[in-house]
């Protein structure tokens, strides 16, 4: 139980060291001001302690110079803190492009994690060391918060939307996963482990596990089962738009609006096809709301992404669409 007396959790991610540096800087500033002001206070209290009951100390109203100094100096210190912390924040929130994606779904009192390569894990996440991992978080009921202290990383899983964060493990090992947003009775039971493994061990784990069907293959099976192929043909002769090379490209909608086919667009078009009808097509596609779970959707999207790009090349991927507003 007593492994020495740690003051920091393990530094197991690329950003952990930077967060700890900033943490130490903040403690130094706090210690400096607390000690100096308390010592000054105690020194004055002892040096000028009341010796006679009827002492009448002199009149000191205040001094503008002093007031300005202890307004401007704290202001400067605070600006330094703000700039340093915000740069750190940008690093924490800007996901590298080469990141592998894991979808994290919080469901009351367990974490369901799903790799793009098809592995599904409950309360466990196996990741290779040195590889950036993008987490797409959502929840099926209340708000949860995916928190790995060793990576200094935390992001809420909010129902009804995707939140994105990322980490890059740097040290192999087994690290805690906690739920950090109160979510009911077993809030403290909603914990698990991240296994950061050497790339070779990770490949072994990938292979070693039950012959995992990759997400795309699972998507293909679903695509066939739900006979999507009858309308969505690669050559575009069917009643539905061509899906090859669709992800990331610009789609011309009825009413002349242009929309980028990102994950949210694909997910919405499967669940609520009549939402954005591609120009030149009829709104005949049935809705799959309630029939496909989050995992099935992720599988279908993965499959669509894996389709070889047809004639047109995929346009640049602007980040997202600001809701049209009047």
């Amino acid at each position, binding site marked *: 139980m007593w492994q020495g007396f740690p003051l920091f959790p393990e530094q197991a991610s690329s950003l952990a060291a930077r967060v700890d540096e900033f943490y130490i800087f903040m403690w130094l500033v706090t210690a400096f001001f607390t000690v100096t002001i308390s010592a000054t206070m105690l020194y004055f209290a002892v040096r000028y302690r009341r010796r006679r009951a009827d002492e009448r100390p002199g009149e000191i109203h205040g001094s503008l110079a002093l007031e300005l100094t202890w307004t401007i100096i704290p202001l400067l210190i605070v600006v330094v803190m703000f700039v340093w912390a915000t740069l750190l*924040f940008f690093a924490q929130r800007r996901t590298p492009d080469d990141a592998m994606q894991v979808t994290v779904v919080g469901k009351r009192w367990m974490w369901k994690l799903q790799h793009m390569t098809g592995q599904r894990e409950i309360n466990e996440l196996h990741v290779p060391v040195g590889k950036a991992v993008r987490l797409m978080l959502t929840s099926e009921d209340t708000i949860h918060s995916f928190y790995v202290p060793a990576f200094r990383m935390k992001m809420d899983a909010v129902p009804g939307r995707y939140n994105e964060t990322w980490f890059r493990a740097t040290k192999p090992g087994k690290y805690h996963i906690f739920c950090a947003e109160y979510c009911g009775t077993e809030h403290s039971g909603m914990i698990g482990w991240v296994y950061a493994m050497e790339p070779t061990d990770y490949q072994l784990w990938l292979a070693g596990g039950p012959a995992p069907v990759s997400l795309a293959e699972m998507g293909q099976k679903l695509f066939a089962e739900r006979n999507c192929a009858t309308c969505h043909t690669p050559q575009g002769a069917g009643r539905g738009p061509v899906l090859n090379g669709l992800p990331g490209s610009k789609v011309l909608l009825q009413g002349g609006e242009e929309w980028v086919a990102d994950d949210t667009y694909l997910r919405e078009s499967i669940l609520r096809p009549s939402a954005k009808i591609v120009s030149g097509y009829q709104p005949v596609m049935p809705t799959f709301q309630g029939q496909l779970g989050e995992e099935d959707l992720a599988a279908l999207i993965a499959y669509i992404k894996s389709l070889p790009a047809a004639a047109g090349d995929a346009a640049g991927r602007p980040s997202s669409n600001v809701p049209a507003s009047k």
Partner: protein
Amino acid sequence: MPTQPITSETMPKEHYLNADYGIRSWLLTIDHKRIALLYLLSVTVAFALGGAYAVLVRLELLTPAGDFFTAENYNKMFTAHGVIMVFFFMIPAIPATLGNFLLPMMIGAKDLAFPRINLLSWYLYVVGFLVTLGALFVGGLDTGWTFYTPYSTAFANSNVVAAGVGIFISGFSSILTGFNFIVTIHKMRAPGMTWFRMPLFVWAHYATSLIQILGTPVVAVTILMVAAERLFKFGFFDPTRGGDPILFQHLFWFYSHPAVYIMILPAMGVISELVTCFSRKRVFGYDFIAMSSLAIAVLSFLVWAHHMFVSGMSVYAAMIFSALSFLVAIPSAIKVFNWTATLFRGSVSWQTPMLYAMGFIGLFLIGGLTGLFLASVGLDIHVTDTYFIVAHFHYVMVGGTIMAYLGGLHFWWPKMTGRLYPEWWARVSAVLVFVGFNTTFLPQFILGYLGMPRRYYAYPEEFQVLNVMSTAGASILGVGFLLPIFYLAWSMRYGRISSANPWPATGLEWQTPSPPPTENFPRTPVVDEEAYDYTRPPKEIALV
């Protein structure tokens, strides 16, 4: 029991305590001093209850496994601790007891502007307290004092609406207190009492009242929306019905962050009084301290989303809130520097109120500066929702507000009861509180950075050592808080009789007998000199 202490002082024959007898004279009083004592009693009951729940929570956390209570009960315990302490002790504590008692006297008025509304405010507080206690005892509430949706609206099967109604009613009581103070300070100051001759205690309560008036209604309407969503299936915050849970957090924290300044600003007012009286010197930089109270009141409304940095709000809004949260720390720093400078070349006495004031300055420094950790977004990602946050706000609330409340209670006890408290017992309890408090909450900073999340019923083994230390500290703190209840009650009967101005301190409230007559002053006093003028012996209004 000791015999009646023989002192030269004699109690004034006619004062507000013996002006009238009987239950009706207390339950239907419109005298601001009696209403303050009614509040003192009910706020102490709330503190005892909240403290009891805290002890139960600390007991459960002695062991990593959850083996003392069931998970539901633990969740109901920490929720009850939070709700009772925040809404029924911290917010009313200083404004409703010391503020109600002293504000009219400090500005030379006979009473608050609306005495009957003052009594209504106490009744609303008691009704709200009873309704909330009913919700907490019969069935309990397990959403935490923050009521986050969609848990509180769709998944909690505890008394959310009942507790919400109780908090709504007590929120209205807080609004009425603030409303009364604003009008009294504006309209009922004695002749010669200009704004910059008012005691800093009054400035702090003016700033607090602004927040109470402009902040509380927003949480009131948010509670109504949560109740409407639970009862009538409106869909405000439920994602399955189109609502946005993060909008609840915006509306909730729009009030709840200024609410923490409702808790700390009166404490700062008390500390300004204690520091200047016990160093017997005019406060250093009076104007800056007064203005920093107003600055805090205004800036506190612009910083709320530093509670939501990881909720998925936009990156750019997080940056704006982070910058503003850093700004709000500057006025607090100005105050601490000015208090320390006041001691310079003073005549500092180490009586109990000064012990609490010095304790406040030390602990509020740690509390305030750890707030900067949370304003920095990069660090907040790691520490939010962990025990680092629990330690931060307990340093500001217990180390700050409760230390100032106890210091103020001891400082004005002779004025309220005409009796002196036993000095040595008071110093013992002050030291106990200081030691117990630090032992309880310093380990929690480390726990927080190690990653122990908040509101955890069971935790991994490696956190046990620090948790045991924290629980040990909690028991010392508990004793430290119980002592004053005994010796202060004892002093009401057997304490040495106090003169009108035992310290002696400046301020109009000390120029009238202790305990004061019902109408405070025989004649409305005229103020002709600066506040805190210790160069001349204190004046006394001759009782004609």
